[in-house]
């Protein structure tokens, strides 16, 4: 059953997914700045929301978003539509850059375990930009996270948004490592089930 009770669709919505993949092909093949600008318009808000959520620092988030899109310009040919959507690829790039930066700054363990009720919240209030509306898939992801038992949700969020290892989560919560691992495993299995309608085909 679809979490919203509506029709199933992929993470991107098919037309947008096709458009983004086409834009990446144009960037790789034709070095087309207009395709780059359109891809930026389509996905920068999602990625900026993600990186600011992970880094909790607006300046760092701007730097990382810039790095990600420069990487897209340089490496668009690496995108393989057979392995997933353009958005999945971009999210992986952005999150990887964020984790690198967190590690370099060595500030993960000083952070509080994240994720308030119902899902992630922005680490900073938007300054002069305004938050954008959540997509249907965004709402579904929040609902799926909210459906998890809180310890599972907190462990997954600490790992995903703060880059904490299982050992680090164990130290912060005082819970045995095996318990943390089990919680994350069960939580991810449940999310894979709940979010199946939103995955790329």
């Amino acid at each position, binding site marked *: 059953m679809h979490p919203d009770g509506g029709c199933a669709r992929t*993470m991107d919505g098919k037309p947008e997914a096709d458009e983004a993949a086409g834009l990446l092909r144009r960037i790789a093949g034709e*070095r087309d*700045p207009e395709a*780059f*600008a359109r891809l*930026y318009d389509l996905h*920068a*808000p*999602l990625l*900026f*929301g*993600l990186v*600011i*959520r992970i880094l909790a620092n607006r300046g760092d988030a701007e*730097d990382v*978003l*810039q790095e990600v*899109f*420069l990487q897209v*310009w*340089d490496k668009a040919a690496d995108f393989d539509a057979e*392995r*997933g959507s353009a958005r*999945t690829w971009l*999210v*992986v790039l*952005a*999150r*990887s850059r964020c*984790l*690198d930066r967190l590690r*370099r700054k060595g500030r993960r363990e000083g952070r509080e375990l994240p994720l308030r009720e119902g899902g*992630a*919240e*922005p680490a900073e209030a*938007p300054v002069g*930009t305004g*938050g*954008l509306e*959540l*997509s249907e898939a*965004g709402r*579904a*992801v929040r609902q799926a*996270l909210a459906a998890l038992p809180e310890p599972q949700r907190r462990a997954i969020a600490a*790992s*995903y*948004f703060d*880059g*904490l290892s*299982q050992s*680090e989560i164990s130290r912060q919560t005082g819970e045995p490592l095996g318990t943390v691992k089990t919680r*994350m*495993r069960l939580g*991810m299995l449940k*999310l*894979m089930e709940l*979010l199946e309608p939103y*995955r*790329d085909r």
Partner: protein
Amino acid sequence: MNEPDPLDPKSLDLPDSREFAQTAALLALAADPLAPPPALKARLLAAIRPEPEPRRARLGWLLPAAALAALLLAPVLKPARAPAARLVSAQGAISIAGRAAAAGAPLRVGETVAVEPGGEALVQVGGGAAVRLTHGGRAVLRRAGSDIEVGLLAGWALSAVAPGRPYAVVTAHGRIAALGTVFLVRAGPRRDYVCICRGRLRLTGGFGEAELAAEGHRDVFISDDAPPVPAAGPLDGHTDADIAAATAALSRP
């Protein structure tokens, strides 16, 4: 090098499947989407701006002849995309076009050189200019006619330019052209800081055009819509030794 992902399926005794990866990517949607500042897009578009098409002269039959000559001479000529610049020295993590780079590495038009915070890269641009990138400096080399210019995306760029050598640093807010000088540019999201350490500069942007000269350090801010305004004080971090190092790079072989 990328760090291992703490949400690695193998560490959870789950298969490293496409389904897992896509579910993990979906979690990004739990964060509120947020519009980035417009200047960021402007900086990116400035960085990837295509090189202008070379003007085509009406050479008639000369073109096929030149093409044939080029074909015949190709094995003994240098590659068409010869390096436009070279990394003279590197401290900390430096990358060119996304790959780790060490002193001596070539830098071509269209490639980005990036300095991690705390690092420093001294780049010789052609024979008459050198730029020292610090504070997370990130710059892309671009061609402007027959000249090379530096698109500064982030961080600080201290440039030393030989008299008469065409050279410019371009940011989202303007173009800072050297008229035989040493100058520092710090790229910012809303405005750039420019220090004329010595010599003359021509500043061009949405504010129009201004020419500034200084015997010692003179500091201004430039933004899109206002004339350059004096800065309250100089930035630390570009010492006489830094300037001497950048200037010395001009004459290195």
